[in-house]
């Protein structure tokens, strides 16, 4: 199975061809946005870049460098302020560990004000856009595709329809040599023993188990007892009885294949097959980690519906709730409710979803792209310094 993608000089493959402009810190966001408005370049919002402790700075750099390194990006311009804590050299060091693609950097204090920064930025972006226009789509094997598996705004249909269908699609992708990433560690609390059995080796199984328990400990230290407040009263009213049942319904979207590796939040994925990314369950911050890890596309399952999107990668919304698919028609891309009525089997819908994913890889836009949604959030441990 093949798709038409962009081959990058760093070996990555993209399904989009963005030239992005990113503020190096929040203070230069206005300048970066103006450059995008005038050039049509893709605006990659960045809420951070300054006043964070060492752990949070590392997470910010991991995500931002990963987003720029993503195969969907041709090249990037970073617009800094000048005095922020993450300076040009630190950005470039983080980015160069992941990619050799064209990345330019300017700052407002050095350029001499907003007007000069925007003018210089526009020149640099025009050059990048000219180079990007010369890129052509080529036939790429499906094994070069990395798909992130995300969920949010779940309802009872998530666990018995769309997550099961996505699990089937994930198995198909893995069997074809591709890569899928399960994430959202807090949602796996209660399924740690099941994940442990699904490691490709006892070591990987143990890593999965340890990641879930470490996440639970961190939440307990912060005063949040996930195990004993789940399923929530709303979950119970919706028919979920035990934590095992809730967690299995969530990890079910990863299908049945063994996990090949465990990655930290936003770390670049370098193994084929199903892998796990250890990170937050906060939807947008989690979606960003999948894309920073290299996912060219994210399948986001939902029951209640959400318009979330990314500047860099298509975020495909899929639901098992037929009412949501119709009621929120302008934000939902794929409806698996036919598995509930018995009109279609999970296998048939899993195959349909895979074929749809391939069309999106070839260039068909998902609703989040049509709607121009580009959300951004990065996990952090502490508050700003």
């Amino acid at each position: 199975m093949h798709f038409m993608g962009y081959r990058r000089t760093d070996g990555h493959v993209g399904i989009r061809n963005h030239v992005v402009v990113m503020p190096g810190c929040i203070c230069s966001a206005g300048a970066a946005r103006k450059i995008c408005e005038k050039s049509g370049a893709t605006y990659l919002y960045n809420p951070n870049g300054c006043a964070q402790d060492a752990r949070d700075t590392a997470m910010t750099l991991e995500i931002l460098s990963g987003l720029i390194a993503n195969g969907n990006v041709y090249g990037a311009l970073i617009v800094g302020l000048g005095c922020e804590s993450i300076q040009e050299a630190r950005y470039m060091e983080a980015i160069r560990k992941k990619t050799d693609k064209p990345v330019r950097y300017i700052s407002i204090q050095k350029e001499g004000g907003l007007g000069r920064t925007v003018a210089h930025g526009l020149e640099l972006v025009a050059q990048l856009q000219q180079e990007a226009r010369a890129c052509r789509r080529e036939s790429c094997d499906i094994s070069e595709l990395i798909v992130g598996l995300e969920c949010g705004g779940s309802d009872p249909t998530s666990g018995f329809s769309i997550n099961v269908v996505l699990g089937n699609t994930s198995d198909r992708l893995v069997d074809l040599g591709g890569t899928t990433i399960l994430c959202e560690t807090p949602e796996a609390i209660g399924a740690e023993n099941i994940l442990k059995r699904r490691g490709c080796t006892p070591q990987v199984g143990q890593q999965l188990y340890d990641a879930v328990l470490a996440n639970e400990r961190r939440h307990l230290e912060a005063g949040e007892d996930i195990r004993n407040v789940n399923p929530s009263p709303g979950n119970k009213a919706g028919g979920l009885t035990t934590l095992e049942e809730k967690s299995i319904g969530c990890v079910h979207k990863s299908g049945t294949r063994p996990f090949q590796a465990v990655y930290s939040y936003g770390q670049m994925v370098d193994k084929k097959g199903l892998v796990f990314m250890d990170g937050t369950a906060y939807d947008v911050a989690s979606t960003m980690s999948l894309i920073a890890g290299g996912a060219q596309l994210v399948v986001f399952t939902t029951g209640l519906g959400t318009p979330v999107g990314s500047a860099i990668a298509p975020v495909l919304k899929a639901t098992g709730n037929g009412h949501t698919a119709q009621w929120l028609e302008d934000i939902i891309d794929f409806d698996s409710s036919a598995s509930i009525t018995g009109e279609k089997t999970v296998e048939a819908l899993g195959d349909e979803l895979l074929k749809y994913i391939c069309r999106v890889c070839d260039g068909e836009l998902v609703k989040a792209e049509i709607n121009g949604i580009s959300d951004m959030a990065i996990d952090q441990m502490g508050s700003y310094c």
Partner: protein
Amino acid sequence: MINAVLMASNDDVVTVTQAVPAGGEICYQREGETFSLAAATDVPLYHKAALRDLAEGSSVIKYGEHIGHATRPIGRGEHVHTQNLSSTL
């Protein structure tokens, strides 16, 4: 008319996709074949019903996995929820 979903072929429970009153028919598919049983109690929308008699203390399977244990005997067709199923974690 299908009104319940079986997640894995060895599951002890199905999830109803319409509320089923006591005495009503619960109808689901297993590997393309349609099966039915009578609801022994009311089963609310998206809740579980037992496919077989389950002894007190026995493991309850959904998604082909253990989701908890029966805290009292559960009859075929009975609503399975917090009143008769508990986490084993």
